[in-house]
């Protein structure tokens, strides 16, 4: 009787181990596949400017500084600047909602507290004219991401920022910055 229970238990434990091993989540198919909307995304995140790569990179770093980002990495040979900032993520609507739920049910829901915003700026020369940089043309692509943490210290969301308006405003600031750089302001 005793051995029977033991054998049953060992079989159960072995089954559990196999289950645990095979439960390791697999990478989803879409993770490294070009999404159908990749062309649209690229258009949203890219602009071209009539200037050389070096000038565009330095104007971009100035915009990032204007916006309070800390530049964490730069490699002009590949046209890359990566920067990030740590900011508040409190959403009044969410706080009021959580308060109402707590009042009604006595259960306190977590609310967003802070966020890390990450951005990479990547330039790509299209026309290079070393003699006259104003005849050069350079493309730039920026991508934003953010990681939001709640008041319990857990990550509540991690995502790419896809709001059209945010990219539009960034490029407006970039063209202003290029103007300021060109006029040495």
């Amino acid at each position, binding site marked *: 009787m005793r051995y029977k229970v033991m054998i049953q238990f060992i079989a159960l434990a072995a089954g559990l181990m196999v289950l645990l091993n095979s439960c390791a989540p697999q990478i989803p198919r879409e*993770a490294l596949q070009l999404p159908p909307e990749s062309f649209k995304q*690229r258009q949203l995140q890219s602009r071209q400017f009539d200037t050389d790569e070096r000038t565009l990179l330095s104007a971009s770093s100035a915009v990032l500084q204007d916006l309070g980002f800390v530049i964490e990495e730069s490699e002009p040979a590949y046209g890359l600047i990566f920067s990030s900032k740590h900011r508040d993520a409190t959403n009044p609507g969410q706080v009021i909602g959580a308060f109402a739920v707590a009042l009604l049910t006595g259960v306190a829901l977590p609310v967003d507290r802070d966020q890390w915003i990450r951005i990479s700026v990547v330039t*790509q020369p299209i026309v290079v004219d070393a003699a006259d940089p104003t005849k050069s043309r350079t493309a730039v692509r920026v991508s934003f991401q953010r990681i939001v943490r709640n008041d319990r210290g857990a990550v509540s969301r*991690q995502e790419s920022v896809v709001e059209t308006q945010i990219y539009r405003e960034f490029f407006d600031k970039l063209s202003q910055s290029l103007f300021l750089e060109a006029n040495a302001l």
Partner: protein
Amino acid sequence: MKTIGSSVLWCPAVLLLMIVGCAPSTRQVLETKESEVRLRSIQSRIFDTPDQNKTMRAVIATLQDLGFVVDKANESLGLVSATRLSSYVLKMTVSVRSRGESQVLVRANAQYNIQAIEDPEPYQRFFDALAQSMFLSAHQM
């Protein structure tokens, strides 16, 4: 009754031993499922171009197309690293090295949440996207 009582004690003890008896988590430092040779072959492709810089710029553009933010780059070592944030965290490092006079070797390795990706398929998808952006075909090593 006695037998059942003692097996009730035995069961958690054996389970505990099985868990404790597993490799310590420091094993993870050097842990891989595949051999180095197999991993390199899964993670590498050769392209017929001598231009390292152009290849790396294509790698960066591909990573951006795939929704990554490129957060590290070093030209002298030919390395970039990037992160994709979704319902999961996907991190990738890609290196580009010249191979002879007329070719470059591109190697990528990726991490999905807390796991190394060691299946060939995700890398194949990445290199397909890269080949598309380079207008060149990727050769296996």
